[in-house]
């Protein structure tokens, strides 16, 4: 039923709408994808795939451990499918979105796209993504694809009952501790009793962990990730906002980022680090390729990160051998709230070979064990936590538990603009002397202006 309605909708759109040539081609590709999914064109398409050389372009954000693993899987897959070649292109996370949009607008969209979940509303609304092809996942309906994944893993990648992408990473963020640093202050980091349960606990232990040479911080107890893109900020503040019962938008879509709860959260948690002189952007190393540089180098004792983080500091045994994963601190530990996010894989609506693209995505993401071992990525497939590789990963049960209490960041077609307004507000109060209340009020006004809800 899903396939037929998707096919009918696309066909209707393609026939009735007055569109330009590129839009028509896109729709044609989507119609083709739906028809192929329905089995109408499946047989001839597969025959063509076997005979004619097919080249797929795969864009991924730069993350060396993952990029190496993907290249290895590409080599395996193309060896099995000699008519297929896949070109992996990587760009740093910070530039990735801009370059992707530029490529799409120039009619040069890659076939396989690595896309963060918050961008789905914008991309889906502009018909830039092809729906998941269930046949490529060995199923017949979207529900067959959903059945492959843990609960809520596809939630951030769907719209109106259609799934447009699958996770390469289905993440939650936890707290990483440097056990050696904890030892320095007489605490055993492997003992859950010593894990900071609340934000108050976190700042108290962070103060103990820091080291100074005169006035200069030589070891930071805890710090946020600063000066990167708006989504990096959102990953950190979103779960804490939810812990405080705050939100970015209300049910009518109006900005409520200046609510008393949000002001309290940013004052008591985010700004606390600055007012207590424990961290801040001035002492943070900003590295777009490794946002966790200070923890990786052993200059920071605690950080908030995902299960993907350890491969980034595998080359530093002093840190890699001594890290411990603890749950994300909470305002109220009895009612935990965490983040869910997904750096996903999807197929461009303009791809001429969507079935082949989805086929490779299925092949790639079905190796949950390989992914977690090589890159620390949780594919979100059922059974990921039970793979031998996951079992050998420190803190896997903490991450699996964290996934149970998380939510994706707010959905909006203008997310980037809204996220930027909040990032600027954070910088205005933490780096510019503005009051938290005024900065958030300004952000709310900007968001309402962006959304037309002023």
């Amino acid at each position, binding site marked *: 039923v899903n396939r037929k309605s998707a096919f009918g909708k696309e066909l209707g759109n393609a026939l009735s709408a007055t569109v330009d040539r590129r839009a028509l081609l896109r729709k044609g590709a989507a119609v083709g994808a739906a028809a192929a999914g329905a089995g109408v064109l499946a047989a001839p398409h597969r025959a063509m795939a076997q005979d004619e050389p097919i080249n797929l372009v795969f864009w991924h954000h730069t993350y060396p451990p993952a990029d190496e693993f993907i290249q290895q899987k590409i080599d395996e897959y193309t060896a099995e499918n000699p008519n297929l070649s896949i070109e992996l292109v990587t760009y740093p996370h910070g530039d990735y979105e801009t370059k992707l949009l530029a490529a799409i607008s120039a009619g040069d969209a890659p076939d396989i796209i690595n896309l963060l979940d918050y961008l789905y509303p914008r991309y889906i609304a502009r018909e830039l993504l092809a729906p998941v092809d269930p046949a490529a996942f060995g199923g017949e309906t979207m529900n067959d694809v959903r059945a492959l994944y843990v609960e809520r893993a596809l939630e951030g990648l769907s719209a109106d009952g259609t799934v447009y992408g699958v996770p390469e990473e289905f993440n939650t963020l936890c707290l990483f501790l440097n056990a050696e640093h904890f030892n320095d202050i007489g605490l055993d980091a492997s003992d859950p009793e010593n894990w900071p349960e609340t934000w108050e606990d976190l700042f108290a232990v962070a103060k103990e962990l820091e080291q100074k040479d005169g006035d200069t911080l030589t070891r930071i107890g805890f710090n946020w990730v600063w*000066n990167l893109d708006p989504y990096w900020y959102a990953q950190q503040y979103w779960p804490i906002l939810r812990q405080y019962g705050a939100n970015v938008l209300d049910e009518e879509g109006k900005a409520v980022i200046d609510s008393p709860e949000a002001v309290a959260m940013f004052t008591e948690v985010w700004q606390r680090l600055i007012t207590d002189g424990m961290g*801040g952007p*001035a002492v943070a190393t900003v590295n777009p390729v490794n946002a966790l540089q200070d923890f990786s180098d052993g200059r920071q004792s605690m950080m908030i990160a995902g299960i993907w983080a350890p491969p980034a500091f595998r080359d530093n045994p002093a840190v890699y051998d001594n890290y411990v994963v603890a749950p994300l601190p909470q305002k109220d530990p009895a009612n935990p709230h965490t983040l869910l996010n997904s750096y996903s894989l999807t197929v461009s609506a303009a791809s001429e070979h969507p079935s082949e693209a989805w086929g490779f995505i299925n092949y790639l993401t079905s190796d949950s064990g390989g992914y977690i071992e090589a890159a620390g990525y949780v594919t979100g497939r059922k059974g990921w936590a039970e793979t031998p590789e996951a079992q050998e990963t420190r803190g896997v049960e903490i991450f699996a538990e964290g996934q149970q209490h998380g939510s994706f960041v707010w959905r909006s077609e203008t997310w980037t603009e809204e996220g930027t307004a909040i990032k*600027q*507000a954070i*910088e205005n109060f933490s780096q*510019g002397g503005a009051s938290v209340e005024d900065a958030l009020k300004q952000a709310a006004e*900007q968001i309402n202006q962006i959304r037309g809800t002023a």
Partner: protein
Amino acid sequence: VAKVGASERRRPPVASKSWPGEAIDIPGRTTVVSPRPWFTLRRRETTWGLLFAAPTVVFLAVFSLAPMAYALAISFTRFDLTSPPEFIGLGNYRSLLTDSLFHNSLWVTAVYVLGTVVPVWGISLGLAMLLVRARVFSSVWRTLLFLPSVLPLVSVALVWKLFFHLQGPMNDLLGIVNVGPIQWLTSTRFAPLALIVMSWWHAASYYMVIFLAGLLAIPRTLYEAAEVDGATGWDRFRDITVPLLRTTFFLVIVISIINGLRTFVFQQVLTTGGPGTSTQVITLLIYQTAFSFTQMGRASAMSIVLFVLVLCFSIVQYRLFRERE
């Protein structure tokens, strides 16, 4: 039929009106002006001139005029790069009137231009005057001082980013006089200043060369005569250097203000417009609006406003200088 010689051709014809090749009646003689070749020297020179200019004209048309015309056209539309533009008239321009980010970027740009160009005029003129007087290794000094202008902007910005680090050389220098450490790039108060200081270093060398050319064009005899008349150094500077450098001043002022308004790389590399929006100059906002927010129509409207600003500046300055001349 006698041919009219060159000297005769130069004589004014008797007929009140004549055209090349037309018969002219001269009393007592039947004369016909020989058909004048179409491809005259003047036409030949014009044709060659056009041919020589054609590559540049085509280049400017394709890479400057056409994009400008396209930007003007899409400034009247809502266009997100991924769907066809939708005509909205002056909607983008109207929205700029109430856009606090746009107003902020105009203010940040104005502060940057003012903070950068005014000191740079003095610094670059001072350096040029020192170079004119340099007797030893003058070529070496000139090369060294011009070096910042030819270095790639991104590399320069990255070096200065390290320089401005909390534990970087700038704070080490200030530490000697018990100042700081200053959060150069991570505070809204100091980040604009850091960019201005860096721009002095980079821009001064470029304008120094222009001033140097102007100074070298002033005849030495004027200074010598003034010296004989007992003029002091300041007198010579005020009464000879400044008046004769007026054209150079005009050039430097116009170019430096235009370059200041167009600044982008330093802000993008060092601060990406932050912290907050403290260094978000208008070009950076245009870039962000176009490529991060994919609002090409709105970004184009901002570009047109910037273009008009630059044009107005240039016209006003040109008129002011022309009146003084």
